[in-house]
């Protein structure tokens, strides 16, 4: 909560879609790389009981989860400075969607934790 207070501006509205954009990226990458991985036989290679395919899927899954959660820091800093007509509600919406997006990322990718990769 540092810096001078200011009005919400058009570009700030990016915070209404930032979280779910991370979800969308994670979802697409997971879907695409899974298809490629199974086709390219990454399921066969691997270390420590985990296939290369699985490691990659887990990395994408957790990576996007962490990325989505990390949005919290800039959001908190920037949204804390908003004041005026739209400020309270836009902040509230931004917080809810950013949180919802992290939950969504963890939810939709969760099958990589417990299902077989290439059947």
């Amino acid at each position, binding site marked *: 909560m540092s810096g001078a207070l200011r009005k919400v501006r058009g570009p700030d509205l990016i915070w209404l879609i930032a979280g779910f954009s991370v979800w969308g990226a994670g979802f697409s990458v997971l879907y695409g790389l899974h298809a490629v991985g199974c086709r390219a036989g990454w399921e066969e290679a691997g270390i420590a009981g985990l296939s290369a395919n699985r490691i990659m899927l887990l990395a994408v899954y957790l990576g996007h989860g962490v990325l989505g959660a990390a949005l919290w820091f800039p959001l908190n800093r920037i949204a804390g400075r908003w004041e005026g007509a739209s400020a309270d509600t836009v902040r509230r919406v931004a917080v809810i969607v950013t949180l919802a997006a992290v939950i969504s990322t963890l939810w939709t990718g969760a*099958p990589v934790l*417990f*299902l*077989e990769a290439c*059947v």
Partner: protein
Amino acid sequence: MCVAPVLAGCEGALSSLDPAGPAAQSIAGVWWVMMAGSLVILALMMGLILFPFWKRHQPREVPETLWLWGGGLGFPLVVLAALLAWGLPSGQSMLAGRETPVYTVEAEAYQWGWNFRYPGEDGVTPEVLHIPAGEPVDVAITSLDVIHAFWVPRLAGKVDAIPGTTNTLRILAPEPGIYEGMCAEFCGLEHATMRFRVVAHASDEYESALDAALAGQEQP
């Protein structure tokens, strides 16, 4: 899984609610659970919606946390998580091509009919698929022209027959008998009558029955 009087109405040669194979059985089971659950949820929601009309009161504050966090987020997330936790592993367990290879037959769809082929055999059995009863069989499904789908509702779910690709479906008929099947993906003029049947034979009679069928001597 379903109560006797209801079951009577569910019987049918193509009824997925009259399951014979394990996959169809497990799916019919989850259907009855989901149906009951849905009716409860529907009744609950309609009760909540109609209640304020019946109980007219002075406007009052409502606890947003309860309704939105509890009702909007918590309630569906818990129910859906439970459903997924059951459904995804269950679906995986029905898949073909896992663990040891099993007896595999080929199904080839075309406008408008089916040809079935068997390992190590020349010739086809049109419109009838012969399998041994009591053991899992993989059906490798493809198409010669447009997309069709292979569906024997009493045994398992359906899989599309796509030209240029082969999809595999695992079926298991516990008892010898006839199981009706059909094309389930719209495929043009004669889609409605694009039926076939699966005939399961006791395993010791399977070889001879198959040979007879391949030789063109139809039985049952």
